[in-house]
C-alpha cells in the first residue's frame, strides 16, 4: 500500500486542529509552548467552545499566542493577565476565559495578581508554563529556576543564599480557598500529552461550571534558554525539574479529603 493510497480523509488520525491558525509560530525549534498551544486548541475544538472562549496572553515568549490560537484574545501587561481575565470573566460570565502565562509573568512580577485572582476564586483557567527561565528576554533567572541551574543572570548557577529558592507557586495556589483544581503536567512525551489534554479540558469545564479557579502548570523546557538541544532539554527536565516539581494533581475539589 503506497502512501498515496493511505492519504485519504477517512484514514486521518492526526492533524492540526482548526482552532490553530496557519500562521507559523515564532517559537524556537522544539519549544514546549507549541505543544501546549496545540493541546489547548484541540481541547477548545473538541469542547465546541471556540465562540465563547477568550484567552489572555502574557508578556513572555507566548506573547503572540493570539496569532496561533484562533479565539478572541487580549494581550496583557507583564504579570497582569489574571487581573485582565478577572474583568473579562466578571463582565462576561458566560464566556470561558483563560490566561496563558510563563513563570516570570505568573510567579515573579505577577505574584500578587495570581494569588488574589485565585483567592477570589475567579472562574477562569490559568495555564502556567513553567520552564524555569525567562525565555523571551534571553534566558534570565526565573523564580522557578532550580538550585544550581545556570541562567544569564545567575551565570554561575542559582545560589539560593543569594537569589532565594525555587518557588513552588502552584503549591501555594492549591492552598487558597478560591482554587478548585490545581495540577502539574508535562508535554514531553505522548503519554504526558494525553494526560495534559485531559487536565486542560477539565480546567476549561470548571471555568464554564463556575467552580472557581483552575490552575494547570506545565513543567516545560526552554531549550534556547537552557542552551541544550530540544531532546536533551526534555531529558534534563525529566531528571531535574520533576524532582522539584513533581507531576500530578495538587488539588481537585471533586475528590474528597484531598491532601489532608
Amino acid at each position, binding site marked *: 500500500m503506497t502512501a498515496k493510497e493511505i492519504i485519504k480523509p477517512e484514514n486521518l488520525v492526526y492533524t492540526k486542529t482548526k482552532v490553530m491558525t496557519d500562521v507559523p509560530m515564532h517559537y524556537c525549534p522544539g519549544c514546549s509552548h507549541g505543544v501546549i498551544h496545540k493541546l489547548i486548541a484541540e481541547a477548545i475544538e473538541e469542547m465546541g467552545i*471556540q*465562540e*465563547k*472562549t*477568550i484567552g*489572555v*496572553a502574557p508578556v513572555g515568549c507566548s*506573547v*503572540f499566542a*493570539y496569532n496561533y490560537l*484562533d*479565539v*478572541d*484574545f*487580549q*494581550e*496583557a*501587561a507583564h504579570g*497582569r493577565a489574571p*487581573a*485582565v*481575565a*478577572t*474583568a*473579562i470573566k*466578571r*463582565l*462576561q460570565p458566560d*464566556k470561558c476565559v483563560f490566561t496563558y502565562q510563563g513563570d516570570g509573568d505568573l510567579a515573579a512580577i505577577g505574584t*500578587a*495578581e495570581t494569588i*488574589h485572582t485565585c483567592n477570589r476564586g475567579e472562574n477562569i483557567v490559568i495555564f502556567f508554563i513553567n520552564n524555569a527561565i525567562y525565555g523571551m528576554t534571553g534566558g534570565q533567572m526565573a523564580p522557578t529556576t532550580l538550585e544550581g541551574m545556570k541562567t544569564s543572570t545567575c551565570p554561575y548557577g542559582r545560589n539560593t543564599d543569594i537569589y532565594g529558592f525555587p518557588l513552588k507557586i502552584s503549591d501555594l495556589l492549591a492552598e487558597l480557598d478560591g482554587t478548585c483544581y490545581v495540577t502539574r503536567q508535562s508535554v514531553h512525551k505522548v503519554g504526558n500529552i494525553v494526560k495534559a489534554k485531559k487536565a486542560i479540558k477539565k480546567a476549561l469545564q470548571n471555568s464554564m461550571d463556575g467552580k472557581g479557579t483552575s490552575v494547570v502548570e506545565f513543567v516545560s523546557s526552554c531549550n534556547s534558554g537552557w542552551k541544550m538541544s530540544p531532546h536533551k532539554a526534555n531529558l534534563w527536565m525529566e531528571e531535574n525539574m520533576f524532582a522539584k516539581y513533581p507531576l500530578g494533581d495538587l488539588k481537585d475539589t471533586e475528590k474528597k479529603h484531598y491532601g489532608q
Partner: protein
Amino acid sequence: MKVMEEIKLMKGNEAIAHAAIRCGCDGYFGYPITPQSEVMETLMQEKPWETTGMVVLQAESEVAAINMVYGGAGCGKKVLTSSSSPGVSLKQEGISYIACAELPCLIVNVMRGGPGLGTIQPSQADYFQAVKGGGHGDYKLIVLAPSSVQEMADFTVLALDLAFKYNTPSMLLADGIVGQMMEKVVLPPFVPRRTEEEIRQQCPWATTGKVNRKSNVITSLALQAEEMEETNLRLQRKYAQIVENEVRFEEVQCDDADYILVAFGSCARVGEKVVELARNEGIKLGLLRPITLWPFPTKEIQRLAKQVKGFMSLELSAGQMVEDVRLAVNGTVPVEFYGRQGGVVPLAEETLAALKEKLVK
C-alpha cells in the same frame, strides 16, 4: 416638587459613583486611597450589581485595578477606575497599554499633595502626568477637569462618551476639594447598560467571543518598528482630530479683560473669587477655565493674547499648566504664575496680591 427630588446634596466622589451607575457603566475596579475612597464605597453601598448589573470590585492594588479596566474595556464594556496621585502613578504602565490598544475607559484621579506619600490635601501637581504622559510612549488622554460636584457627575458621563467616541482612555483630573466638597447636584438620567448585541455592533473590535467573524485581538505589541510606527501614526491622527473637535473651556468676564487668570478645577473656583475682588478694585480681570486640559484651549488663549496685557496661571502646584499657557501665548505677552503647593489652597486675596505684583504694574 418633581425637580426638587432630583436635586441632591453630595460629595463630588459620591457624584462620580452615582453618575457611573446611571450612565450604564458595566464595571468599576478600584483600590482605596484618600481622598477618593468614597467613589468605591458609594458604589458598594448602592450595590448596582443587584439593579443595573454593574460589577464593582475592590482590586488587590491599583496595578490590578487598571489592568482589570484594560480587560473590561477590551470587551467593549463601559468601565472605570478611580484613585489618587500615588495610586495613579502605579497605573501608568496600564494606562499606556490602554491608550495604545485604543480602549475606551475612564480613569479618575482625585489629586492629593505630592510628591511621594505627601499629604491627602488637595493638589493639582499631577497635571504634567495627565497631559504630557506619565506612562511611556507617545499617547494622550482626554483630560477633563471638573470644578464642581455637578461637573463631577456630568464629566463622568461626558468622559466616557468621549472615550467611546474616539476609542481612547479619558481621565477626570479632580482634586481633594472637588472630591470631598458637597454641593447640590442633579444626577444624569438613568441609561440602561448596553446589551451584548449592542456592544457587538458598537465595538466590533471587542473580545466578545469569535462568533461569525475573525477572532478579535486586543494588543499593543508590534515587534517590527514599522508596524509600531503605523500604530503611532494612527494614534497621532486620532489625537489631531480630538484637538480639532473636543476643546472645552469656560470664560468668566473675559470680553473686556486686560488680564486673564487661567485656572482649572477647584482653582478656578478660587479664580472666580479673584475676578470679583479684582473687578472691585477696578482691575479688568477675566478667568479662562480650561475644561479639557488635553486638548488644551490653545487657540482660545492665542485669541485672547491679542487682546490682553498678560496672563497668570493659578495652580495647586509649582507651575505646570503655565507651560501650556506659555506655549500658546508664544511670547506675545507676559505669562506669570502663582500657586501653592503640597496641599495648601491659595486664597483669593493672596492671589490678587500676586497678580498685582507680577502683572498689573
